[in-house]
């Protein structure tokens, strides 16, 4: 059976000519059955042969990441149906990626520049418009004032007035102080501070007029929209001008020049509008171009990134091979399963042919003492169970794999703790949703928890099926029993049924044929009966599983040819466990079959305390006392049998081997170097410390003896969890659903039903499932595997492209 022991592995040496190396490794990656050993582990990554190639791949990966960023910004996603066109060569791809990157960067820069000038022009237009309004209104005001003054002048003709008139007329342009102005646009939130600082810096000698702009304006420097105000600052003097300019720059206000001439203003506005139109069309065309480019990239993206990842992994693998420059070939060492030999040789042949090489690859099996990796050939059903076992420890090479039995016993023990066929049906429905949509889900990317549930869908299915079975046995459908398999065995003592609540019912028919009798539910003596039955069941199941574990250790010992383990470990262990707990199981069965009233606690304890005493009313069968003494002696003998013989026999074995070697040294004339080599080899290989071996065996013995008691008791958790589950289920049913039913009100019934469903799903289906899962797992890992499993191997990890996509994400 393949799953019971690891596939046979062999250490293989491949001698590949350089020209076919790349192609051969690529084909081996497709096959996925060869694990390469790193022959260059002392070299740093930069000293390796193909470091430059890896750098190239890294560059290409960076470019691809850049493209992905750009696509994400533009809102595109790489199309899932990638073009499976002809094999794109790596060099061509590199060149293409370089070109695309340059083009994309250039386009981005151009777009940005255009956008910036567009925004600046918009601001300029706004400034011109608003500032011309100022000047226009100011000029109107001034003209109105002038007309007033003239009217006044014409009106008044007195002696004082000519003097005043003269004074006013004396204001000729040459003496007029020329007012300069600075116009620009500033973000609204800074405008107040701007005004204040201007006032303080110029000691109030400037005049600032602001006007708000409706609607947000895109700032050319930052590219973000902001509320802005157009301002005009009137000043006189050159130094003040410098101060104002510096303050504008500090506040991030953009300054734009402005002419007073009305005609020129109109001209400027017309020109700017025209330019804005042009720019807009240019920008739009640019964007369309960019999106086209990104779409072409998106179409090929998946294929390209896959290719780059593949190439990178091929070069990493090539780096692990040692190069033999004189013979122009690469040497690879690695593990592969023996059954794959033909496939690998074919693939290498294909590689040689495809790369037009004269020399074929040499496939050479090496002999080694190294321990090979462990490889189990699993399918989608068995892989989940194998993962459960591997989580504890990978099996040593060719050790018996507990996964074979775990496929059945793990869901079974879960079901013993979960037994309710209503809940089992719910679990089955939930998991069939995942199993039916298998193909769809395996290609999607799921969240963490959903991924775990999807990975374990077959485990949950088995758990659900067994839960339905045990639920039928415990007779619990959401804690309600049914009489499905015939009439109940219990009936009233007499027709009036007076004693039903005091002395109870009587067994009037044959035993209920399948499962627990439905009459038990809700009675006062239900718990004592069920507890007794479930505890005894747990002991029986536990002893059975532990015996299976010890028998597997026998098969392991036989396989490895370890006679010592068979005679001095398996036998005493079997005798010890079965003479105590096997006997207890026998007593349980005999008590049930005969209906005796013997007290089993008493029997077991007094078997140790006073074995020669008369059993009295605890006698279950004839010859019990004699049997008990016999079993006690057997158990007492088996403990030193487990402890002493093995270390002494191991020492004798080692001495024999050693003595044999020293004979060889005397007889043959080996040179000094060989002698020392042999000596070193033997002493370092078998450092035999007797005390260490003895202590190891002592620990092993104590662990087994004490473990026999504690592990058997540990199986009582099967009873404990099953009790908890049935009590919770019965509480939710009685105290929620029946209570709501009793009110005879539809609203309360709906609320009650809702609470019942929430409680069942949350507590029983989620929490209890996880809890029973965990405890069944513990029982397997500690109590079952502790009897035979070493778990000190390492997993076979072949070089395969199939695992690429998952490992890089």
């Amino acid at each position: 059976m393949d799953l019971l022991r690891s596939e046979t592995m062999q250490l293989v040496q491949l001698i590949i000519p350089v020209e076919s190396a790349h192609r051969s490794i690529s084909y081996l990656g497709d096959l996925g059955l060869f694990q390469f050993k790193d022959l260059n582990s002392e070299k740093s990554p930069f000293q390796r042969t193909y470091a430059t190639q890896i750098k190239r791949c890294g560059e290409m990966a960076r470019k691809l990441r850049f493209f992905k960023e750009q696509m994400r910004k533009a809102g595109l996603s790489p199309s899932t149906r990638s073009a499976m066109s002809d094999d794109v060569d790596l060099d061509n791809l590199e060149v293409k990626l370089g070109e695309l990157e340059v083009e994309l960067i250039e386009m981005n820069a151009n777009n940005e520049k255009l956008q910036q000038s567009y925004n600046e022009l918009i601001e300029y237009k706004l400034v011109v418009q608003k500032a011309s309004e100022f000047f226009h209104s100011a000029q109107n005001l001034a003209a109105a004032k002038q007309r007033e003054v003239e009217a006044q002048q014409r009106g008044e003709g007195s002696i004082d007035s000519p003097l005043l008139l003269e004074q006013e007329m004396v204001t000729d342009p040459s003496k007029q102080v020329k007012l300069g102005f600075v116009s620009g646009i500033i973000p609204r939130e800074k405008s107040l501070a701007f005004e204040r600082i201007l006032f303080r810096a110029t000691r109030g000698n400037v005049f600032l007029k602001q006007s708000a702009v409706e609607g947000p304006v895109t700032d050319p420097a930052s590219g973000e929209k902001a509320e802005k105000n157009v301002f005009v600052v009137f000043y006189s003097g050159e130094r003040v001008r410098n101060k104002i300019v510096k303050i504008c720059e500090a506040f991030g206000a953009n300054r734009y020049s402005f002419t007073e001439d009305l005609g020129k203003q109109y001209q400027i506005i017309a020109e700017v509008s025209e330019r804005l139109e042009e720019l807009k069309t240019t920008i739009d065309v640019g964007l369309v171009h960019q999106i086209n480019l990104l779409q072409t990239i998106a179409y090929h993206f998946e294929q390209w990134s896959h290719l780059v990842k593949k190439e990178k992994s091929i070069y990493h693998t090539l780096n692990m091979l040692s190069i033999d420059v004189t013979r122009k070939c690469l040497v690879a060492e690695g593990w592969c399963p023996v059954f794959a030999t033909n496939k690998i040789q074919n693939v290498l042949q294909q590689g040689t042919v495809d790369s037009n090489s004269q020399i074929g690859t040499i496939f050479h099996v090496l002999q080694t003492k190294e321990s090979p990796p462990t490889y189990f050939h699993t399918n989608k059903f068995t892989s989940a169970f194998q993962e459960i076992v591997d989580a504890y420890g990978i099996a040593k090479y060719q050790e018996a794999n507990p996964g074979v039995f775990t496929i059945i016993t793990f869901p079974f023990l879960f079901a013993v703790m979960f037994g309710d066929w209503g809940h089992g049906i719910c679990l089955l429905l939930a998991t069939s949703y995942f199993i039916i949509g298998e193909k769809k889900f395996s290609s999607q990317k799921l969240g963490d928890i959903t991924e775990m549930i999807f990975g374990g869908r077959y485990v949950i299915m088995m758990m659900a099926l067994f839960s339905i079975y045990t639920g039928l046995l415990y007779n619990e459908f959401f804690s309600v029993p049914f009489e499905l398999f015939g009439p109940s065995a219990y009936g009233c003592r007499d027709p009036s049924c007076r004693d039903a609540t005091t002395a109870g019912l009587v067994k009037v028919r044959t035993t209920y044929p399948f499962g627990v009798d439905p009459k038990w539910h809700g009675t006062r003596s239900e718990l004592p009966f069920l507890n007794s039955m479930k505890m005894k069941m747990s002991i029986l199941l536990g002893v059975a599983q532990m015996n299976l574990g010890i028998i597997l250790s026998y098969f392991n010992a036989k396989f490895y040819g370890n006679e010592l383990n068979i005679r001095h470990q398996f036998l005493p262990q079997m005798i010890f466990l079965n003479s105590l707990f096997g006997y207890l199981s026998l007593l349980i069965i005999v008590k049930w079959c005969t209906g005796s009233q013997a007290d089993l606690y008493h029997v077991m304890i007094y078997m140790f305390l006073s074995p020669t005493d008369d059993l009295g009313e605890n006698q279950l069968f004839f010859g019990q006392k004699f049997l008990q003494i016999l079993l006690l002696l057997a158990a007492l003998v088996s403990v030193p049998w487990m402890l002493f013989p093995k270390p002494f026999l191991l020492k004798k074995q080692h001495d024999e081997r050693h003595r044999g070697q020293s004979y060889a040294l005397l007889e043959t004339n080996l040179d000094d170097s060989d002698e020392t080599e042999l000596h070193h080899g033997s002493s370092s290989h078998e450092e035999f410390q007797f005390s260490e071996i003895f202590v190891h065996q002592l620990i092993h013995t104590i662990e087994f003896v004490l473990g026999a008691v504690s592990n058997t008791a540990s199986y009582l958790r099967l009873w404990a969890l099953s009790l908890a589950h049935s009590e919770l289920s019965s509480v939710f049913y009685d105290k929620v659903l029946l209570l709501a039913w009793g009110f005879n009100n539809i609203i309360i019934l709906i609320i009650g039903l809702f609470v019942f469903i929430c409680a069942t799903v949350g507590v029983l289906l989620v929490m209890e499932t996880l809890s029973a899962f965990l405890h069944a797992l513990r029982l397997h890992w500690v109590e079952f595997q502790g009897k035979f499993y070493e778990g000190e191997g390492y997993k076979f990890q072949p070089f395969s492209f199939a695992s690429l996509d998952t490992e890089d994400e």
Partner: protein
Amino acid sequence: MGFLVTTLIFSVVGIIASICSRICCNRGPSANLLHLTLVITATVCCWMMWAIVYIAQMKPLIVPILSEGE
């Protein structure tokens, strides 16, 4: 229906299940052996649990005592 009769039924169901698995999924000797092992393990587990529950009720030491108000 009796203990022995039902045990016989369990063994017959087990044999039929192993034959079915051999017919439906015949994939090489090692896979066949694995399927056989799984079917036998499942049958033994199920039978053991049924047998325990059945035997526990054959000669009961406690009887159901109904609670008040039933």
